[in-house]
């Protein structure tokens, strides 16, 4: 694992050409939080698109400002996206994101291994 960045709502790091985002437990995401995650993500990606592994199980609430931001700005420079969601709450947020987002190959997973298998197809 290379450099890990922590902000108020998440941890982000790059590992084997996959960008990992792990949301902290019981966080509320507003516009500022969404913007910070994007800023930190693009810092780690150094301008290159890559597959993203995103564990959203910790999210308690995401407001409409953050959702609108994630739908456009938050979907930039993503080759493919694996969302980890194993609770009804996380699945609800995932389904909303699926409707909002830009055209990015995205799939929902309850476990890490198949999610990583899906993302590996998009490396390089």
């Amino acid at each position, binding site marked *: 694992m290379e450099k890990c960045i922590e902000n108020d709502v998440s941890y982000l790091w790059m590992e084997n050409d996959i960008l990992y985002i792990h949301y902290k437990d019981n966080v509320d995401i507003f516009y500022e939080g969404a913007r910070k995650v994007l800023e930190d993500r*693009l810092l780690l*990606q*150094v301008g290159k698109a890559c597959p993203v592994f995103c564990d959203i199980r910790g999210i308690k609430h995401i407001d409409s400002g953050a959702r609108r931001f994630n739908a456009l700005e938050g979907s*930039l*420079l993503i080759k493919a996206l694996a969302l980890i969601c194993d609770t009804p709450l996380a699945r*609800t947020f995932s389904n909303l994101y699926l409707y909002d987002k830009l*055209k990015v190959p995205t799939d929902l997973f309850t476990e890490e291994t198949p999610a990583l298998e899906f993302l590996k197809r998009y490396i390089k």
Partner: protein
Amino acid sequence: MERPENKERLKKINQLLMELAMGKFFKRIERTDSKDELEAIMALANLVAEDLNINLSYRAHIDPDQSYSCTLQLFFVLNRLLKIEKTGSGVQKYLHFKEEELLMTSFESILDPNSQKQWAKAAKEIARTSRPESTLWLTFRTNTGLLLPAFCSVIQLGVDTSLKGRYIITTSHVIKTRHPVAAPFYEGSGQPKDGPKGRPMGRKRLYAPEKWKVRNTGKYITDHMDRPLPKLKELAHQFGINEFKLKRGFKELYGMTVFQYLKEQRLRKAHVLVKFTNIPILTITAMVGFKQPNHLSREFKAKYGYRPTDLR
């Protein structure tokens, strides 16, 4: 489902849906740390209320034949110990507390836990800097158990007033006034045109399925912003509506023309790429669908007040 805490959560969902059914979109359900099906429904109910509040009231269904006004929602006077000394009538209407129930109680006692922390921090900051006015989002607990998030203005009264050392906290919201817009606002003759039953004739509104088609067109434009926009007639037909409805729909849903919407989306994407990546501006220009970097630069400056190169 039979457990008492679940019954309580169901009751809150019911309360919120009743508020929505009555056209009141301000309230929210206080969320728990659970992540089960019921919690997912609570989260969705809050999101629906939030979206209705933003879109239905202000944008998507705004009625061009009505006028809208900003009105006071909540009003509090706090003493220097941040206890409530006076409330406006909106506090009873929206929070369901009588004034006497709140007098001399601390302001933070009617906030949700997150807002209590924010308020404590903000109050310290306001007192330290002696800033006369600040704004912040706070979520109020209502007496019925629902939450009411609101954008608050906090005014610190100066030494030169009889209320020195006190604070005024207000929130406002937009309401539809009873009277239609006055004559000068009508296009053409300057007089309202009456419909068959004496009602002013409004412009034809789009039906919900047509709005979805417009929304899907918007999504298509965002997904293909790197390419030139097809002719509007072709684009409209691709999504099963006509050019007129596409143009009208964009104005109604997004408050702008199709071309303005495309430019807005392109500039949002360009701003992120310029600010947070090292991708050459020439490449970004092509990625977001502008033909020339100087065109991007000009539009960028018009929207953000600075050029892309100023961010590098």
